[in-house]
């Protein structure tokens, strides 16, 4: 059985159904892409998988490595190894990046009964320095307040830095490519590619095929109106690049 199993997932916000029966299986070591036009439910899927309280799961199941994910709070999902790279990460004024990252690392390191096992400071500094260098993030960022006044590119890199440091088993990238110029896109996708391997499953959520030139998916799923209407290999991304979502009956500007 795959590590992540989504079956017949329905979810609604404020009584409006957005996801209308999603089925998807993904294992560690694989990269899947979910592509879809605006309003198709891509971000909803990402938020439902992470447990955002505004969404109501009306039916269906999600398991990760056999655990019923839908029963868990977001922090419990995180400690299970699920990570969401946000399209619009929140700013936390007054909390420095370094402080936040150390708290997050320590939260992940807690034992099964919550017993603390904090990382030693020199070890944490080293971990931080290495990963920041890889992602070409300026060292001064660690003493700034988390996402407070960050540019779009800085926010995305911060998400990648968190992913690198927290070492999830399943990473969901929600429109990580939006708002990035080509250099930033390369840095971010290099960051993701560096982390992919047999221990990591990646679910890339994107509107555009562009990102998939840098992060090559094993499978591509097309999401339209809350349902997966087609699944296949990377060639689907190429097809979307060429023809947009029109073949799926979607009216919108070219991709």
């Amino acid at each position, binding site marked *: 059985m795959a590590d992540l199993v989504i079956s017949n997932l329905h979810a609604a916000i404020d009584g409006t159904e957005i996801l209308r029966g999603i089925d998807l299986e993904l294992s560690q070591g694989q990269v899947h892409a979910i592509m879809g036009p605006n309003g198709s439910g891509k971000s909803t899927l990402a938020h439902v998988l*992470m*447990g*955002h*309280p*505004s969404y109501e799961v009306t039916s269906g199941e999600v398991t990760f490595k056999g655990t019923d994910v839908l029963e868990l*709070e*977001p*922090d419990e*999902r*995180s*400690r299970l190894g699920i*990570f*969401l790279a*946000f399209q619009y*990460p*929140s*700013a*936390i*004024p*007054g*909390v420095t990046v370094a402080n*936040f990252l150390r*708290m*997050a690392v320590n*939260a*992940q390191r807690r034992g099964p009964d919550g017993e603390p096992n904090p990382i030693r400071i020199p070890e944490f500094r080293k971990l931080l320095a290495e990963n920041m260098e890889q992602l070409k993030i300026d060292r001064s960022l660690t003493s700034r*307040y988390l996402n407070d006044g960050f540019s779009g590119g800085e926010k995305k890199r911060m998400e990648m830095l*968190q992913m690198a440091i*927290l070492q999830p088993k399943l990473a969901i990238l929600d429109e990580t490519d939006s708002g990035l110029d080509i250099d930033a896109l390369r840095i971010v996708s290099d960051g993701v590619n560096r982390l992919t391997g047999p221990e990591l499953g990646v679910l890339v959520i994107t509107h555009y095929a562009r990102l998939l030139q840098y992060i090559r998916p094993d499978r591509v799923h097309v999401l339209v109106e809350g349902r997966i209407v087609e699944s296949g290999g990377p060639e689907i991304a190429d097809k979307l690049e060429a023809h947009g979502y029109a073949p799926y009956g979607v009216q919108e500007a070219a991709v």
Partner: protein
Amino acid sequence: MADTELTQKERDAVAIGEYKYGFHDDVTQPFFKSRRGLDEQIVREISAHKSEPEWMTDFRVKSLKHYDARPLPTWGGDVGRIPFDDIYYYLKPVEEQAKSWDDLPPGMRETWDKLGIPEAEKKYLAGVGAQYESEVVYHNLQEELQKQGVIFLDMDSALREQEELVRRYFGTIIPYNDNKFAALNSAVWSGGSFIYVPKGVKVELPLQAYFRINAENMGQFERTLIIVDEDAYVHYVEGCTAPIYSTDSLHSAVVEIHVARGGRCRYTTIQNWSTNVYNLVTKRAVAEADATMEWVDGNLGSQLTMKYPAVILNGERAHGEVLSIAFAGKNQHQDAGGKITHAAPHTTSVITSKSISKDGGRSSYRGLLQVNKGAVGSRSKVVCDALIIDDESRTDTYPYINIDENDVEIGHEATVSKIGEEQLFYLMSRGLSEEEASAMIVSGFVEPITKELPLEYAVELNRLIQLQMEGSVG
């Protein structure tokens, strides 16, 4: 009362804040305790006990008359439920002040150890005064500072040893008839600190006073007077705690500060009374030309606090600052803020207020900004931010602004925010529990103030806020 017989109120108090300081010492028997309630006889008894000069006895009696005549304030918090007739207005815990912690009775010594005061003195303080009930039971100042002429005494000793200096300033910044509770303090004051820093002397490490209420129905009325001479500097820190009882106690202090030309005084308070204490305090400073006065005022405890540290900017280019943090939890009302009077040209001031309300708590910012005619070129900025943790809690803002001069620059900003669902979700998605995430948002919210504190106090304040946040999120 045995531990097994806690009343519901006491159990609530223990349960909500994880209040660490709610224990009490029932071993040490007081040396002297006045009867409950207040009248002229008690006031004269207090004065006689202290062998005070006649002018002070007269001052007390005059103050009592004003106190009796003056009605309770009807604004701010509800002071009508204070059991004035049940309060002990004077309680002398030991016959003599100790020079060494070891000379204190064991129960009292244990209290100070639990509060960590002797340890703090060794590590990072230049001097310590420790007040227990009505009297300062331990006092010490580093010898080096004594040699430089710094005076740091409890107020009663100062009246004996520095009578002229005390008489010149006492009651001049906050007159006995300033308000009902200043009048009460003026009548029954006991303990508190007296500090004189001579010209040009900079006291690098903080001087600290700690105020501990131990008895039930206690009234604590310390009186503090600080004089910072020209170009001198001092940082004074006060902390306070009390046991949890089902009955109410009253703390009503008066603090007067005079900062001479070019001097600087910083006064930091970490108020952590138990939630059966009414805390009604008058604090005011006068800053002369080029002087700086800074109040850092943290209010975490008490059931009702009414406190608005004030600065009168009396000389050109004087600078006044109030940094205020209030945390109102269950059954708490923090009515706090600051008052600044620009009475000279080119004076500047900043009031920064941050309040947090949770579990039905109520915090109010109340501030006064006064610019007198002739205070040309003055600048002031008031920022008050309120954070509300849940729907049951409340925050209000009462900014009073009187500007009698045209050539001034005034800024006022106020924000109210709730802890955002998106912020919580974001932090929780990184593995932080809901409590940890809320506490992180709150500590970020108060960071502009904690970063101003010496490390030890910043850590302490953050720790207290974390404790207040624990178990609070539904």
